[in-house]
């Protein structure tokens, strides 16, 4: 008899649910906490920064639903074929998460970029293309590879633009961690669950810790 689908291991289900709730709560807290600062200033950097956390929050919700569909067996079959359902979720999942990564990078790079509007349009087009490719190939692994490639390009660009002698700031490390942890969390919900359970917990705790650090840093400035 094949082993039960991993999601219905109650430990995995509870940890996934708790992790998703915490990640989403902190993403939305960051988004709403910075609302007043943005409304007062209409500052572009704040717009992209808070937008990134809004999209990450939505992505983590969709990731949970997607993984639930993906790993459940009979649960949803009587309503709708579960693979079809999972497939429908991969479109917004791909779009929101790619835009989240893009806004996170663009929030701290927009000053050194010439025409913001064109870059933003390119970002949205890339996000749509990535999610369409993931939809057509019916694979979140494809989405993972494409977002990895996008992140590598962003890191290289950041390295090229980085001023010599200037130390890498703590906040840039946190931004990088948010993006890389998203990719790892996407890998976790892969069909074969390639990471051991302990590693999954470790990365989930680390992800929540990064969101809490960001929220704590914001709370110092935005009362």
């Amino acid at each position, binding site marked *: 008899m094949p082993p039960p689908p991993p999601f219905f291991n109650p430990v995995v289900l509870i940890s996934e649910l708790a992790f998703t709730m915490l990640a989403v709560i902190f993403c939305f807290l960051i988004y709403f906490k*910075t609302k*007043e*600062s943005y409304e*007062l*200033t*209409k*500052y572009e*950097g*704040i717009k*992209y*920064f808070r937008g990134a956390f809004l999209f990450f929050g939505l992505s983590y919700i969709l990731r949970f639903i997607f993984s639930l569909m993906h790993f459940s067996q009979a649960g949803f079959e009587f309503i709708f074929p579960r693979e079809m359902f999972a497939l429908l979720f991969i479109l917004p999942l791909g779009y929101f998460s790619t835009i989240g990564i893009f806004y996170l990078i663009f*929030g*701290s790079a927009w000053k050194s970029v010439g025409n913001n509007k064109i870059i933003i349009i390119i970002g949205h087009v890339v996000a749509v293309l990535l999610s369409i490719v993931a939809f057509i190939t019916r694979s979140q692994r494809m989405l993972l590879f494409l977002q990895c490639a996008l992140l590598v390009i962003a890191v290289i660009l950041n390295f090229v633009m980085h001023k010599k002698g200037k130390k890498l*700031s703590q*906040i*840039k490390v946190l931004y990088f961690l948010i993006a890389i942890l998203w990719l790892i969390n996407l890998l976790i919900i892969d069909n074969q669950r390639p990471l051991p359970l302990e590693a999954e917990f470790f990365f989930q705790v680390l992800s929540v810790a990064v969101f809490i650090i960001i929220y704590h*840093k*914001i709370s*110092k*400035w*935005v*009362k």
Partner: protein
Amino acid sequence: MNKKRDRLTVIFDILKIISAHHNSIKPTPLLRSSNLSSTNFAGYYAELIAKEFVKEIIDRKGRKYITLTDKGFKYLEKYKLILGFIDEFEL
């Protein structure tokens, strides 16, 4: 005032001038104190009115005064914190 002020600082400086004048100043002295060209000032002034940071008051003799709104006071109060937030997050 520094020539290379960014948009947030210019807005803060203009609001601070109004506040320092007991929250009531005529447009011409405000333009002079802001150290902006009249074209730049007109742009910022329109933005401040549109964002409801300031409002115009006409007195009985028909003279126009500019005063801060609650939102304008809030901007003054929060400016340094917002700047700290922008710096820390490299936005």
